Each structure stands twice: as structure tokens, then as C-alpha cells.
């Protein structure tokens, strides 16, 4: 975990919507290290998907990068405009797994053909029998039994979990260095979710992948992620190692997010919910975007945007609470409880 594979610097993404401009990503800095798995969490509309789609030039037609850069392998992806250049990045360097396996396969092509299509683009050296073997190899790797027979079948002959495995096989067949998993388990039931997560962990090792995981399921995050980035209103507001985020969260939004975990709820007590709605990104956000929903907000939160305060070399948060001049604010009870758990864990190790 030393070499930076992809470096995002002060990235801003805007969308033109009916004559108005929506500022979807508001200045993100993030280094992704080779071989790590980083999870990006946040509620719907926080910009998780848009952020990662920009790595592959897959923003919708009305979206554009207004400033900033995405450095990968010595080039700035944000400057690519030609479709031809993107085709080399897409799949071959960065591949993506999408949310709904039921709709992400072409219904009229056999899955063997769909995997072959990826191999032919990114690994054209495999032809004929070698290509066939390669397809069977990928299907075996993602845990599909009888790969030879299954390769000739159409997507509708597969169950949801099996289709997600096929989608993963297609992504692998592109031979990527970075794999973006955009909520890959959201559409699956719980037992299948666990299998897919385990599969991704195995494949990450085997293919030396860097995985970017987008999810709002913190259970999944705890299971797979080395690092966690918490997003809110188009910004990363807290970033740290997974255990730092889970046991020592610092941003009030992360507190709120963790407090709403049903697993931490007490019997007889209503589950915690975050009041209000995310800010309207058509308007300029003043101060801390989360302040209006934050019962512990300081006055300055409404006036000035907080900078990033370092908690540890690997952990920072964007909140005025970490400023030395800030008053001591008590985190919610649940957070104190999990902090204690963390201390105990450390002691045990």
C-alpha cells in the first residue's frame, strides 16, 4: 500500500439540467493506492456513482468535469475527450460492475459471447481454442459450475447471483487494474451478498486488483474495505482506515450514519434517523453542508466551510469540531459505545 495508482485532485463535476447547473462533485481530493480496497459510502445522491463514473468517462451527456484532474498512469483522465482514448481506459485499465445483474447483461447474446467480446477487445492475443479456454477459465474463477455448458446459455437461464458472477467474469475478462464495484450486492439477497463479497475478495488477491467499492451498506464495507471514504453532498467529509472510521469516527455525519445502523439499535428504542434532507446542489453551499441537519453544529459551520483536519496520518475529517479552538462536543452515546469496543479490541490484539 504505497504506490498511488489513481490520484484525484480537486475534482469538480457539474451537470446542466434544464438550464440550471447542478454542482454534483464539489472538490474531491483522493489518492487510491495500488492493491487496496477502498469503500465509498454515503446516502443516495451524495455523488458516489458520479464520482467513480468520471474515472471511465461514463458521465451522462449533460455532465462535465469543470475543474480538477484525475491522474492515472501518467495521464490526466479528466482531459480525455476522444471516444477512442476512453475505450482503452474502459475495461482494460478500469472496469466496472453494476448494481443490477438482472439488467446488465445483453439478453440476446450467450454469456460466452459477452465474455469473449471483452477478451477480444483487451486481450486480442487469445483466439480460437485459447479464447474458449480463457472464457471457461474466467467462468470457473467466478465459481460457475459446468462452465462449458453454461457459456452457451443466455442470461435468462441464470439466477440473479449467477448473473452477478457473470458480470464479474466480464469485468475480469477486460484484464483491468482497477475494479469499480457500484453497489454490486444491493440487488441480491443476503446469503448471495456474502458469497459475492467473498468471491470479490478472492479475485482481488488472484488478479492483484485495486477495488473501489461504492455502497451504502456499512456491513459490506466492514467486510471488504481497507479504507473508507464517507461522502456527503459531493464531498468526501471523512477518510480513514476502516477501523478508524468504525471505531473512531470524527465527523458528525459519520456519527449519524453509524448511529442509524439497525445492528446498534436497542430493543424498544426507535431507530436513529438523520433529520432533514441533503442540501440542494443547484445552489452554492455555504459552510458545512451537513450543518442544517446536525444538532451539534457550531455557529461557524453555517458560515465557513471546514478544512480537512488530520486525526492520524491515515485519517482526516472535514469538520470544525476538530479545530483546536472548538468547544468539546460529546458524540452520541452509540459512538462512545463503539469507541470503547474499539479500545477493547486494540487491547485484545
Amino acid at each position, binding site marked *: 500500500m504505497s504506490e498511488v495508482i489513481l490520484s484525484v485532485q480537486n475534482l469538480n463535476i457539474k451537470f446542466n439540467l434544464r438550464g440550471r447547473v447542478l454542482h454534483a462533485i464539489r472538490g474531491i481530493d483522493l489518492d487510491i493506492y495500488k492493491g487496496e480496497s477502498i469503500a465509498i459510502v454515503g446516502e443516495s445522491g451524495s455523488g458516489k456513482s458520479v464520482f467513480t463514473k468520471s474515472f*471511465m468517462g*461514463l458521465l451522462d451527456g449533460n455532465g462535465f468535469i469543470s475543474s480538477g484532474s484525475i491522474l492515472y498512469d501518467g495521464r490526466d483522465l479528466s482531459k480525455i475527450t476522444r*471516444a*477512442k482514448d*476512453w*475505450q*482503452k*481506459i*474502459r*475495461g*482494460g485499465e478500469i*472496469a*466496472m460492475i*453494476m448494481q*443490477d445483474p438482472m*439488467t*446488465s*447483461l*445483453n*439478453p*440476446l*447474446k450467450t454469456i460466452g459471447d459477452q465474455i469473449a*467480446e*471483452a477478451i477480444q*477487445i*483487451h486481450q486480442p492475443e487469445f483466439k480460437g481454442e485459447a479464447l474458449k479456454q480463457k472464457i471457461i477459465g474466467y467462468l470457473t474463477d467466478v465459481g460457475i459450475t459446468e462452465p462449458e455448458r453454461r457459456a452457451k446459455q*443466455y442470461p*435468462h437461464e441464470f439466477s440473479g447471483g449467477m448473473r452477478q458472477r457473470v*458480470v464479474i467474469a*466480464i469485468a475480469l475478462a*477486460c484484464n483491468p487494474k482497477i475494479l469499480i464495484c457500484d453497489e454490486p450486492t444491493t440487488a441480491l439477497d443476503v446469503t448471495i451478498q456474502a458469497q459475492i463479497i467473498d468471491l470479490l475478495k478472492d479475485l482481488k488477491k488472484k488478479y492483484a486488483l485495486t477495488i473501489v467499492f461504492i455502497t451504502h451498506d456499512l456491513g459490506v464495507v466492514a467486510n471488504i474495505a481497507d479504507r473508507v471514504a464517507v461522502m456527503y453532498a459531493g464531498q468526501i467529509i471523512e477518510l480513514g482506515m476502516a477501523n478508524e472510521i468504525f471505531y473512531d469516527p470524527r465527523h458528525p455525519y459519520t456519527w449519524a450514519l453509524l448511529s442509524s445502523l439497525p445492528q446498534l439499535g436497542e430493543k424498544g428504542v426507535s431507530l436513529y434517523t438523520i433529520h432533514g434532507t441533503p442540501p440542494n446542489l443547484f445552489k452554492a453551499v455555504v459552510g458545512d453542508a451537513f450543518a442544517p441537519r446536525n444538532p451539534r453544529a457550531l455557529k461557524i459551520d453555517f458560515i465557513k466551510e471546514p478544512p480537512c483536519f488530520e486525526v492520524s496520518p491515515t485519517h482526516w475529517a472535514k469538520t470544525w469540531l476538530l479545530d483546536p479552538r472548538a468547544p468539546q462536543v460529546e458524540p452520541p452515546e452509540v459512538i462512545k459505545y463503539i469507541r470503547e469496543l474499539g479500545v477493547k479490541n486494540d487491547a485484545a490484539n
Partner: protein
Amino acid sequence: MAKYLTKRIGRSLITLVLIICVVFILMRMMPIEGYFQNFEKLSDEQIQSGLREMGMLDPLPVQLVHFFQNMFKGDFGVSHKYRVNVAVTEILRDKIPVSIKLGSLSILVSLVLGIPLGTMMARFKGKWFDKFGTLFIVFIEAVPAVVYHLLIQMYGTKWLNIPMLFDGADWRCWILPVFSMSLGNIAYYGMWLRRYMVDEANKDYVRLARAKGVSENKVMFRHIFRNAFVPMVQYLPSSFLNTVIGSIYVESLYSVPGMGGLLVNCVKGSDNTMVQAIVLLYATVGVIGLLLGDVLMTVLDPRISLGGKEGGR
């Protein structure tokens, strides 16, 4: 598949028999003038003896059995009004090939022009090509066909220096009728193909294909087009049928000796035997068209299994 086909063909045959029976019975309710060339001048005895001769005084079921017996021999009776005492089959034999040739050529032209039109409009959605195409489609759909058919005839014959009178042996004479008949279908195919392709383009598998690094043209043709074409294919045989039958105006405009208008003329003239035969012909083509449409769809879409446990569609 074979099992489904036999079942399906069997059902089609039953449909045809029912259509024949209904048409036959309806024809018996028509005024008897239609069986005689000079009805007004005939005496009652002459009419009665004429009807007896034709077997019209037999009970209805007997007549129906006779009709079926003759039909299998290829005998549909003789025309009484359109061309007196000429066998119906002989009249149709000359006309059917002309109409089918005209219809086939026009469908071919419609596909060759309509499919690229729809595809390009979807590919460049919102760009000038799309706008131009939409203008064309709206014009064709909104303006009564008579208007542009006439314009094409007036200016087309002049510019291309084509004789006004149709001559089947001269290939130049086919150009304008075929083109006129195609315009509607070109607009129709273009409109629907564009619509289905735009629908497909927003689906997840297209996004995945793009994320794989597939080039935009290949995404368009390998993924979007094939999926968009499935719903279109079902209607191709029926639209072929409509083109063959529905060319009344174009055929009469260019005086093409085809079947266009034949049915209407025969119904108007109460030429009952002719009506019977023509309706039977159209019904057969229609039933075959629907059958072909379904079979074509199965060939293109693996999700549709005909027969089998699910019982097909």
C-alpha cells in the same frame, strides 16, 4: 419448435376454415343479382333455373361441402360480373404476381432505407440528422398520402422521363410506384426503430458494454440494434401483407394491373365468387404473416420459447 409449429399451423388452418365458412355464409345472404350478368332482363323462371344450375338452391351445408370439394380441386368458380364466365383463378393468376412483385420491392426498399434512417436517428439523437428525420416522418405521417403520391407522379415522370402508362416489362416504370409505396413504410420503420433503439440505449447492459470498452458503433449495432429489432420483426410480415393489399391508390394512379382495388370493385359489383376467393386469399396471407412474425421473433430472441413447458406465448 417442431411441435409448436405443427400445433400453430394446425390452429392457423382451423382459423382459415372458420373464415371461409363465415365468408361463405355471408355471401349467401347477398342479393342474388351478383350471379347474373343481366339480372333485370331475366324472367323468374330463368333466374330459378340459373340458380339451380349453379347449385344455389341446395341446402346451405351441401353448398358448403361442394365449395370445399371444388376448392381442393383448385376451382373457385367463375366470375359473374368482373369478367363474365372467366374462372376466378385465371383472373387472379395474372394479377397476383404483379401485386406481390410491387409489394416485395416496396418492402425491400422500405427496409433498406427505413432501417438506416431509424438507426442513424437513434445514433445521433437530438442532432441535426435526427431533427431532419423527424421532419420527414412527421411530413409523411401527417400529410395525406394522396398529396405526395400525386406530386411524385407529376414531377417524377417528367424529371426521370418515364412513360406515364405502366408497362411491366420496362423496369423504369416500377421505380415511381415502388418508391411511392415505400415512403409510408420508411417513415414507419424509421420512427419505431428509433424509438426502440432509444429505449434500449438507456438499458444497463448497454452501459456495461460501454464500460467494457466496446466502441460506440459496435455498441450501437451489436447490442442496441439487435435488441431493438426484435419487437419490429413481429410486424414485418403483416406490414408486407398490408403493402400488398393496401396499394389500391398507387396501383390505380399508375394503372398497374395488380390486385389493388379488385376486392372493393368486386364487393361493389356483388361479384360473389370473386369476393369469396379474394377474401380467402387475404386471410391466408394474413394468417401466414402472423405465423411468420412469431417464428421470426423466436429465431431472434432466445428468451421466447415456443411450446415447451411454459406453453409459449
